[in-house]
């Protein structure tokens, strides 16, 4: 069984992201693998180590130079990697992204499981997994906190999902699309050999024609304006007082005046 992981390149979580003159910029940090996707990659590697998966394949979609995410996946240990890139995919919304990814996934045989991160920390939509699953017509289980059982022969998967209302255990049928949470595993650090392999790896680039993009599928959502978040002006007011009690009482008065309690 092949496991496919979808990884995206994003700015580092520590990046100071700003808009200046309408353009999103960030400074001081280089692009990284979307942090949620490290858990997806790790889970695929664990399945291979357990003998449940035979091949781990990472797919990313982006410009020709968006390789950091997928390189990290290679360094961690996936067997194969592909970059899907086409001018038609510039500024893709999740509807188009999910089309491109599902078309790429269809080109692989024996896919039993597709793993996504919970969400990408740039677009923050958390929609791609469910949309890819729907396009493929495969069973889709999001917010997975644990794979409890995977039976390749019977074609079943049992997972624990973490939802707002609690923990749900459910059984699905392979091929399955899942998205994973941070608590599912501890992603490994790439080894020295892994890093060397990643730096030498020639990542195949698949064009829109290669994956047979349907020209009828287009982006529907645009974001003409991106702006900085108006921040609360100034430094916090430090509540003074001689005792903790006095400070606490002053604070409570202020919170009452602000009508937040």
């Amino acid at each position, binding site marked *: 069984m092949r496991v496919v992981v979808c990884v995206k390149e994003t700015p580092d979580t520590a990046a100071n992201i700003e808009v200046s003159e309408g353009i999103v910029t960030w400074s001081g940090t280089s692009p990284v693998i979307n942090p949620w996707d490290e858990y997806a990659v790790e889970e695929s590697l664990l399945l291979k180590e357990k003998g449940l998966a035979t091949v781990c394949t990472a797919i990313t979609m982006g410009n020709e130079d968006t390789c950091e995410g997928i390189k990290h996946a290679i360094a961690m240990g996936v067997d194969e990697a592909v970059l899907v890139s086409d001018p038609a995919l510039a500024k893709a919304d999740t509807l188009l992204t999910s089309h491109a990814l599902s078309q790429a996934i269809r080109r692989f045989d024996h896919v039993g499981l597709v793993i996504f991160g919970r969400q990408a920390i740039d677009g923050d939509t958390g929609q791609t997994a469910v949309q890819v699953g729907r396009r493929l017509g495969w069973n889709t289980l999001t917010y997975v906190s644990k794979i409890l059982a995977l039976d390749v022969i019977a074609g079943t998967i049992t997972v624990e999902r973490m939802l707002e209302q609690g923990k749900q255990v459910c059984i699905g049928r392979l091929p399955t699309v899942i998205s994973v949470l941070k608590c599912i595993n501890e992603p490994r650090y790439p080894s020295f050999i892994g890093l060397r392999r990643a730096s030498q790896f020639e990542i195949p680039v698949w064009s829109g024609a290669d994956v047979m993009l349907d020209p009828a599928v287009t982006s529907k959502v645009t974001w003409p304006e991106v702006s900085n978040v108006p921040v609360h002006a100034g430094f916090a007011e430090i509540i003074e007082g001689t005792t903790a009690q006095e*400070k606490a009482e002053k604070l409570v008065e202020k919170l009452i005046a602000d009508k937040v309690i």
Partner: protein
Amino acid sequence: MSGVWVWIEQVGGKAINVSWEAVGLARSLADDLGQTVIALVFGANASELAHEAFQYGADRAIVCEDATLAEFRLEPYATLVSRLAQERRPAVILAGASSCGRDLTGAVAVDLETGLISDVIGIGWEDGMLKLVRPVYTGKLLAKEICGSSPQIITIRKRAFQAPVVDEKRTGKIETVAAALAEDDIVTKIVSMEASTGQIGLADASIIVSGGRGVGGPNGFDLLWQFSNAIGAALGASRAAVDVGWIDYEYQVGQTGKTVSPDLYIACGISGAIQHQAGIRTAKVIVSINTDPEAPILKTARYAIVGDVVDVVPSLMEAFEKRLG
């Protein structure tokens, strides 16, 4: 095109709050468009909930109480909503940006090949077009987005819009529909559901008491438990506190945890790393309790008490009790 549709998400026969917030938004959009608000209510107790939806502002309801819809599962829910939408062409479909809301709308958007804008916190008309504001880059920036197809599918962030005032005299017409899938055609089988431990969910909380490495250990969290229970707040934590094992991951707030929008966020022994702050951008008032008068969180907090969590929290608990009973 007809109607502004809104999905009423329920857990155990009770609607979750964001559904009513969505009905409020649906009402104002429908009034702008001269259309009706139609509530989609599925599962056990759906007719009861439909009546409640009328009181919040819905005009009509489409109800399905089929056993296959007893609990949310993607396949039967999405297939039903898509089929109804293909037949009746709503202008807008709204839902809360909960886990289930995101799943449902994501799948329906694919079925209808239409745009989906999720986790919206603001909305307005500009040049005859609906512009939706949503946080991106984990709340570091705001994007104004436009959906260029119909229906427009939108999910709203919890607590971003106000739930309307209930009008007990309002009623509406219920239409019952059949399920779109039979149980045999549904692959996902739910084995069990372990409900969260009765505490207030972080995403719904109006007050959150949150602890970081500065609370000193699991005992520090016992203190914060007491405090949060005493004032009816939800408990949260920084990743550092989760990573050392003082508290479970489900309490983590921030970039790789939960995003919250309380009225009041009390950060106890939390430095305010950029990844933590990303989760609390839409909090109204942030209070910091920290021994360090220069901790980064003070740049966004409105108030700070410089001091040890162990001294300040018991005093705060007393002060709350004295003033608010």
